[in-house]
């Protein structure tokens, strides 16, 4: 499997990337012989084979100059696949906002200037802050879970399987027939949080169960074991979640929201872990996790990101969200109004960002009449109503 197979041009840095200097410490260069990053070289060689008929370019550049880049290329034995060696730019003038590395954590990259004065962004930022579990708790959860010796998620070859991803929104009820249709036609089911139990009640078997929430109450979602189901838990999930699922097929992934979390994970795994991009909620994360696992065809059910007009927030009882209906506002998307909580707005906003940046990677069908479905159907953007409620 080549991690770079969809890339048209690749610029590879030299030190710390193509080659490593054993014993380096920050700011101190060891005088020993550099080591070649064989794994990267193998990926690049496969990528070159796959792109040999195209105009794809492989550039190796270094802040230490063109000659240094040429030395590294020679050392790595990849002269035949590199197009050009360059001195790395110190200034880049471009109308774009940067490079995106889909294998690294990506924060929303839309220029905030566009919307910095808008009510929408303020709401999103406010909701994101409210979503945060105390960082100490998250750090403790991570320290606990990584020591459990669980396998991590890793890149797989692309496949053509269709997945139905189930959010807990109220539209799950109205789209149940559509879900059954996909399921009986071979689609696999991906449950998040409470939709796991909801599916079991419907006598339908999830193939994947995913969670990101760091709070302790989430253990109640996974009480029943489903043989053959793969449990994809963020390392920040609460210890009680792992305890409840002991002996099941759990794979870890890492949400990583702070430098401290990144350092813990990097140190523990010697930097050998998969970066997963995404946003504030588990479904936003799932797009990238599932893409890493080789999936790209998704049907979304119950991913409403809004309440019903009557204030119903889930397709099933979820006590933790009962207060959500107390703090809502109307948002407009195209010509339709939706009743949303802060985290709904945040999720919809981040969903827009995900689609804007990575929409070409996924084949998405959103079922229901919720805010997300409307955004996809009409290509409409979010607007917050001036008057609350």
């Amino acid at each position, binding site marked *: 499997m080549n991690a770079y197979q969809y890339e048209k041009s690749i610029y590879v840095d030299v030190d710390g990337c193509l080659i490593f200097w*054993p014993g380096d410490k920050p700011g101190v260069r060891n005088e020993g*012989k550099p*080591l*070649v990053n*064989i*794994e990267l070289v*193998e990926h690049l060689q496969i990528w070159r084979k796959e792109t040999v008929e195209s105009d794809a370019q492989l550039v190796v550049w270094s802040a230490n100059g063109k000659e240094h880049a040429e030395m590294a290329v020679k050392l790595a*034995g990849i002269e035949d696949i590199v197009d050009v060696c360059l001195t790395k730019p110190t200034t880049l003038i471009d109308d774009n906002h940067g490079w995106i590395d889909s294998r690294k954590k990506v924060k929303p990259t839309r220029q905030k200037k566009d919307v910095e004065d808008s009510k929408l962004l303020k709401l999103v930022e406010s909701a994101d802050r409210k979503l945060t579990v105390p960082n100490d708790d998250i750090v403790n959860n991570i320290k606990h879970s990584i*020591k459990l*010796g*669980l*396998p*991590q998620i*890793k890149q797989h070859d692309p496949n053509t399987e269709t997945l139905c991803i189930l959010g807990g929104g109220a539209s799950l009820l109205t789209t149940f027939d559509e879900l059954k249709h996909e399921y009986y036609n071979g689609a696999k089911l991906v449950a998040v949080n409470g939709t796991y139990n909801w599916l079991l009640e419907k006598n339908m078997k999830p193939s994947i169960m995913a969670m990101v929430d760091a709070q302790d109450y989430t253990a109640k979602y996974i009480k029943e074991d489903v043989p053959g189901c793969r449990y994809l838990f963020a390392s920040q999930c609460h210890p009680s979640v792992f305890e409840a699922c002991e002996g099941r097929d759990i794979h*870890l992934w890492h949400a990583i929201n702070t430098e401290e979390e990144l350092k813990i994970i990097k140190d*523990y*795994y*010697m930097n*050998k*872990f*998969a970066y997963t991009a995404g946003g504030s909620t588990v479904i936003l994360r799932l797009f990238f996790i599932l893409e890493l696992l080789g999936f790209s065809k998704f049907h979304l059910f119950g991913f409403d990101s809004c309440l019903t007009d009557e204030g119903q927030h889930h397709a099933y009882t979820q006590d933790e969200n009962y207060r959500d209906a107390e703090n809502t506002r109307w948002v407009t998307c195209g010509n339709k109004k939706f009743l949303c909580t802060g985290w709904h707005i945040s999720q919809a906003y981040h969903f827009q960002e995900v689609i804007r940046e990575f929409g070409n990677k996924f084949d998405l069908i959103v079922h229901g009449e919720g805010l997300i479905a409307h955004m996809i159907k009409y290509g409409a953007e979010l607007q917050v109503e001036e008057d609350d409620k």
Partner: protein
Amino acid sequence: MEKISETERQKYSEIWQYESYSEFSPGHEMVPMFAEISGCKPGDTVLDAGCGSGKGGLALNNDHNLDVTFLDICSWNEILVPEARKLVMTKSKFIQAPLWDSSWIPEKKFKYGFCCDVMEHLPTEYTMLTIANLLRACDHVFLHIANFHDGFGVVIGKPLHLTVFPFLWWKIAVSELGEVLDSRDLINNSVFYMKGN
């Protein structure tokens, strides 16, 4: 068993003649993690099991002042890098033996066994025998195992990684042999730190 040992020895004698094969040393890379997990102290004895170029054992000696014994199926003068050879000539011991053959196990246990990128090179039927030997010979054993097929075997027309399985396969298998104190899935590699028997 003797025939396979000889075949394997010849294979690695051949591959170590290629300088580029010793350019990257997984053992050397893993020394910091071994030190972190084991909490080793200067003077502790360690067996660099399947030492190859000896860079791992060299780093254990140089960076942590451990009392290193090298072991490999090939002879020391055909595989060790010059600095490791010097160490063998002045301070360290070298044992030439196949790891799955218990004849090399000394009466006095090593405090640590350090075995990096070896298991995947062994015929599958010898992997558990080898780990069992290591657990007999050492108080604690550090295993680093590659979970991918090698790219270098084409040079001699023979695959080098004969036992390629994912992290979970190894975890279940080694757990049958002894207590696993630490296990880490490093995506394409697995690490296990085990208590000796």
